[in-house]
């Protein structure tokens, strides 16, 4: 029983990490109907940039001979992500207004490869341990009293994710800019006609998702170092999104949790019977089942089609 509980909790916390990446996807999808394939690379890019601002081995240190304190490094990285967002709007999106979603999607694939190459060139391709002083190790209290092994870092990530989701949900539902974001997602022309500037909205939304990518980058980087495999997590976020619904912020979280738990439980309890490595494909099978029976996901906006 205790082992089962530990499995579930570990799964939940791993799920939080998936959710963090999925959240970035949802934001951009909600606001521009674009599935941003580059989101995983954004997280990687943010992590790399942060590392270089605050670590001894980074080029900021090479250039100026000192490193930034962590908080300043985070702000500077956020600045970098805003610039990236602005450039994406300026160089990519602006020229693709009113194009088919599939074209925008292809553009983000290109963007993903470009950013990955750029990150490689700028920051190098070795694994970088990111240490910004987040708590790590097991939660002693639980380990001593209940013999449960749970990472402090993962608890911390869960708290951060919870706060972020709350803020974002309010932002989207209750504010003018949130409404403008949803409006842009729905109909470009109509949004323009009520005085919403597409350019501003796109810069805002890509910046916000850049911020989410930064948080995801920090969490993943603290957990397993910043490495290029981080961009592959984007693929894991896809089933998370199918489960939760592409347009739902809470959906991204719940989807991430279900996949996190499902993977771990399936691996441990069903693995021995069918040869293991379930963790690698479980999420995709689950997504497939969802596509068959509930294509809008758990929380996605109902697809309304009048005929």
């Amino acid at each position, binding site marked *: 029983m205790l082992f089962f509980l530990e499995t579930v909790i570990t799964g939940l916390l791993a799920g939080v990490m998936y959710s963090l990446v999925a959240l970035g996807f949802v934001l951009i999808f909600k606001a521009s109907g674009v599935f941003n394939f580059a989101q995983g690379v954004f997280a990687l890019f943010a992590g790399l940039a942060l590392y270089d601002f605050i670590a001894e081995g980074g080029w900021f240190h090479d250039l100026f001979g000192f490193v930034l304190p962590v908080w300043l490094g985070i702000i500077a990285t956020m600045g970098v992500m805003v610039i990236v967002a602005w450039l994406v709007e300026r160089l990519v999106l602006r020229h693709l207004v009113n194009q088919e979603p599939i074209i925008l999607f292809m553009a983000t694939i290109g963007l993903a490869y470009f950013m990955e190459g750029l990150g490689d060139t700028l920051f190098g391709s070795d694994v970088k341990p990111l240490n910004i002083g987040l708590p790590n190790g097991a939660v002693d209290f639980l380990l001593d009293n209940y013999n449960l092994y749970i990472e402090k870092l993962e608890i911390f990530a869960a708290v951060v994710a919870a706060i972020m989701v709350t803020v974002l949900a309010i932002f989207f539902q*209750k504010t*003018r800019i949130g409404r403008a974001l*949803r409006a842009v997602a*729905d109909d470009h022309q109509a949004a*323009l006609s*009520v005085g919403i500037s597409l350019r501003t909205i796109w810069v805002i939304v890509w910046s916000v998702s850049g911020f989410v990518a930064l948080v995801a980058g920090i969490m993943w980087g603290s957990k397993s170092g910043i490495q290029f495999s981080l961009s592959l997590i984007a693929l894991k976020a896809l089933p998370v999104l199918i489960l939760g619904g592409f347009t739902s912020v809470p959906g991204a979280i719940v989807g991430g949790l279900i996949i996190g738990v499902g993977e771990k439980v399936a691996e441990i309890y069903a693995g021995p019977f069918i040869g293991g490595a379930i963790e690698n494909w479980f999420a995709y099978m689950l997504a497939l089942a969802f596509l068959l029976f509930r294509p809008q996901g758990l929380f996605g906006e*109902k697809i309304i089609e009048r005929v």
Partner: protein
Amino acid sequence: MAYERNIGETILSVDQISLSFGGVKALSNISFEVKEHEVFAIIGPNGAGKSSMLNCINGFYHPQEGTVTFKGQKRRRVRPSEAARSGIARTFQNIALFKGMSTLDNIMTGRNTKMTTNIFWQALHFGPAMREEAEHRTQVEKVIDFLEIEAIRKTPVGKLPYGLQKRVELGRALAAEPDLLLLDEPMAGMNLEEKEDMCRYILDVNDEFGTTVVLIEHDMGVVMDISDRVVVLDYGKKLADGTPDEVRSNQAVIDAYLGVSHDDE
């Protein structure tokens, strides 16, 4: 008209507008003026360039030649968001609503240009942003009352029947408290009763708020009834403008509508 309005100075003046898409000339040398508080109709056969004309006025299209002067500001290339901010609101021929959002939220987006709090307060959803939200909600409720759509306030607009969607779209335009309201075929596809309702709303808006209305419409009965002046376009050229009576008796207009062969084709 039963009531009297003060037709004022020129609010919108379109001067020598020419617009082409590649080799296709959509508009050539169109000029007309719209006076304050007027109901002004643009009519013409299909493909005459009526919608293109509206798109030039609100900045969706940038004409290659000519200028649009709105409230004394002369401009050639204007962004749609700037046009909206300067007081131009519009509806579309094929309804362009935010389908996943409720009626209320759709109309709230119309208040976009009137909202001023910055993104910082917005993000926190606190302080000034919250107060502002409440004020605008009050305005939106007025629009909802005016259009008699209280019952569908919370309904996602994608689920509404066509006629009501048209009404919500008008509501969104009205929420911006525009000086100039552009309506692209507001009555297309409606039944008689819905058309009468829509006419009444248009006239009421014009009457109560003094909003200048420029509309495109195919139903000649409606156009001749509610418009103060009419401009007729055909193949991107202006055939005539004037009061409904003048236009009705204009030979070029009669030819265009009854289909006399065009020598210059």
